[in-house]
Every structure is written in C-alpha cells, then in structure tokens.
C-alpha cells in the first residue's frame, strides 16, 4: 500500500537561509509526486510535480524538488526563503497509472520563516 512520510512536522528557519522539507514515500509501482502549499486561510496550491523525465523539478516561488527513486524520496528545497514562505507544505503521491487520480498525502510540514 502507498504511504507518504513527512518526518518534520515543523521547520523553523531564518529569512534568506536555505531550507529542505523531507518527503519519503512507499509504493510498489511507479508514481507521480507532488508538493502542495497551504498559506494561512487559503486553499491548497500546487507548488510542483514530478511525472517523468528529469528528476529535478522546478516549481513556483523558487522551490525545487528532486525525485530519488532509490531512496524513494522527493525532498523540497529552496536556497533562500522569505517571510512569505511561511505556510504548511504537503507532499502527495499518486500511483501511475491508477486512473482514479487519488492522492495519498503526508501529514504536512509547517515552515516558519523567522526575521
């Protein structure tokens, strides 16, 4: 069965510092991988996705993630964070091809950017 693990529930980081939010998944088949962000009082917004091809995926707001099949990981990174990046970040996996588009989410990581 699929599962997604986000080990860090909260990550505090100073402004302009780099950050990495970790995501590991388990699946017996190939997968699609996603990162979503939820800003305070807003809905879920897609940051980036890995479907196939290049393992380094670039998303919005300067974020990127690298798919590592051997490590079954899809960690999210940003070289320099801003106060406005304070939000909750969710990693999700969808089996390929399942046809139902069902996502399995992790428990989320709260990123707190400090001045």
């Amino acid at each position, binding site marked *: 069965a699929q599962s997604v693990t986000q080990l860090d529930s909260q990550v505090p980081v100073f402004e302009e510092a780099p950050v990495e939010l970790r995501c590991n998944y388990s699946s017996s088949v190939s997968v699609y991988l996603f990162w979503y962000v939820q800003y305070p009082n807003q809905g*879920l917004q897609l940051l980036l996705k890995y479907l196939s091809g290049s393992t380094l995926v670039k998303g919005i707001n300067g974020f990127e993630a690298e798919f590592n099949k051997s490590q079954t990981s899809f960690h999210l990174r940003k070289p320099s964070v801003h106060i406005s990046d304070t939000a909750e970040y969710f990693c999700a996996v*969808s089996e390929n091809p399942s046809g139902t588009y*069902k*996502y399995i989410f992790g*428990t*989320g990581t709260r990123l707190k950017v400090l001045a």
Partner: protein
Amino acid sequence: EAGVTQFPSHSVIEKGQTVTLRCDPISGHDNLYWYRRVMGKEIKFLLHFVKESKQDESGMPNNRFLAERTGGTYSTLKVQPAELEDSGVYFCASSQDKQGRGNTIYFGEGSWLTVV
C-alpha cells in the same frame, strides 16, 4: 477563470445535527474529489466523481456521510448525524479528464467543520 469554490467556509454545529457542504468545481472539469483533514493529521481521500457517477468512494468513513453530484456539476457532502470526530477541514478538488494534464488536481479553500 474561477477556481474551485466551497461553501460554507466555516461551520459550527452541535453533535447530532446535519451539515451539508457544497463544492463548485472548475467549469468543464469532469472529475471532482472530496478530501478531509482531521486536526493535525494527513489529508485523506474520501471519494471521486466522474461527472455524476461515483468512481471511487473507498475513503468514505461510514454511512453518516452522503455525497452527491446531480447533473455532474456541483457536489454536496452531507454529514448526518454529525459526531465530534467529524470535525476537520473538508477539501473539494477538481481536474480535467485529459491526458497531458499530469493528474494535477485543483483544490478549493476548504470548509472548516467544528462539531461541538
């Protein structure tokens, strides 16, 4: 283009009462999904509609939950009777059923339900 809209944004009801959540998907999206996040836990899949048909309802917790999508447009999720453990955020999402979209699902802002 309007995104996925959900109503109400917040709802506080007493245990035993009924609540109906509504979702309007992005126009033209045949696929509509309901997800739920209970406090501090992961976002969990509830069910998936393709047009008016339930494609997958494996995530529905019990028969107190009823989802409908009459006419294949908006959807409602009714909880009757509500229990304390039903409190959480209910997300609706939609997607086009076309290849090349890479399974991207667009989420609404969620309906926050508190059962007291």
